[in-house]
């Protein structure tokens, strides 16, 4: 199993942000984590990414701990920020993360991903000089350049321009086709349910529903909330 979450709780002080969450995701599946603001989607993704520790319960990635370096080498993460360094060039940003992820030839990987994201011509320009759309594409390249077996995406389509959305969807399709697992939290149900094979609905920190994405869900994004959650 690529991702296994068993009875995970997370407290912030006395407040339980996650309450007894359990689900699994196998290789080649795409799990959409959905829920209203404050449902616990980001908290859960941060635990899976090894950025935060569960207060109770267990989250395993490829059978290992999320903080294990071997696990993290196989995981790609896109959070709320674009996570690129403004003072470095696009190429330097990609080479840095390629080195950190142990990519065999960081320079070649950086060139390849600059090409794939349409940034080859401006690869030596500083990231701070880029337009918003270019920075978003650079962030996508940063997350995908080590060919991760698991992608953890927090609101991946939010504030992306059309070109970046198309690029993201194409890369996610390619990742799923090669057997990678995708776990994404999102409010943009239409884009997410187009790709999702499974859905996990969080309702105020609790698991509202977990199961395969059905035709009703894809056809009517509001169906999920009406059927299992809150309106």
């Amino acid at each position, binding site marked *: 199993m690529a991702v296994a979450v068993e009875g995970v709780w997370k407290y912030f002080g006395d407040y339980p942000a996650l309450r007894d969450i359990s689900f699994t995701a196998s290789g080649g599946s795409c799990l959409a984590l959905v829920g209203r603001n404050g449902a616990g989607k980001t908290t859960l993704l941060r635990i899976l990414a090894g950025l935060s520790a569960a207060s109770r319960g267990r989250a395993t990635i490829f059978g290992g701990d999320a903080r294990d370096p071997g696990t993290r080498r196989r995981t790609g993460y896109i959070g709320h920020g674009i996570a690129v360094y403004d003072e470095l060039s696009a190429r*330097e940003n990609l080479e840095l993360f390629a080195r950190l992820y142990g990519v065999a030839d960081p320079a070649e990987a950086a060139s390849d991903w600059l090409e794939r994201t349409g940034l080859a011509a401006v690869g030596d320009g500083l990231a701070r000089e880029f337009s918003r759309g270019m920075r978003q594409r650079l962030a996508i390249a940063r997350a995908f350049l080590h060919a991760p077996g698991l992608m953890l995406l927090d609101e991946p389509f939010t504030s992306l321009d059309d070109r970046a959305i198309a690029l993201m969807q194409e890369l996610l399709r390619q990742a799923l086709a090669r057997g990678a697992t995708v776990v994404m939290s999102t409010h943009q149900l239409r884009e997410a349910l187009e790709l999702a094979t499974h859905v996990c609905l969080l309702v105020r920190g609790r698991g509202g529903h977990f199961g395969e994405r059905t035709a009703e869900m894809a056809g009517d994004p509001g169906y999920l909330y009406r059927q299992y959650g809150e309106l």
Partner: protein
Amino acid sequence: MTFLRHSLAIAVKDLRAEMRTKEAINASLAFAVVILVLFSFAIDPEVVAMAEISGGVLWMVFAFASALILNRSFARELSNDCLDALIASPVSGAALFFGKALANFALLVAVEIVCLPVFGVLYNVRWTRGLGWLAAVVLLATWALTVIGTMFSALTVNLRLRELMLPTLVYPMLIPALMAAMQLTTVLITGQPIGENWLWLRLLAGFDIIFTALALALVETVLVR
């Protein structure tokens, strides 16, 4: 090997970013020189033997100026959520800390190299007399500043008042190292042999070893909450 490779990648990244903006090093250098100048006005060389207070003055300046570099160390990772990307990557907390410490150490040493001749001229002190030993003391004490400062930079990175909290937490922790550095620097600048002050040097080296080991062991807990 992976630890060193990751640490070097982080250090090179930090130094490259700093050389492009020069935010921290310019502020630190300007601050250090201004304090040196102000102290030189405040102390009357006909009343006070300058060499006798040289260690104290020098390390007060270095300690205050270092806060400006150390404050930026982890704070620079906050823009664009870069810290999350680093913690989510296969880099261990220890390698991240060590890489940042190496970059901070290089920047602090650069500031000190510029400040020492300025100090010599303003205070009319011959600081090159025991240059080998002085270099050893400066490097050991700077590493102490670096290790404690980098660790507390990680600890305070998410606080709103981190610019205030870092010096408040760091200086009390540094008292043993600063006392040793001040004593040894004064001894060397006044031309005394280091023999009788061997214990201070051992204290400084011991401080470095203990706090480096503690920081490497604890930083992962500090970063992942």
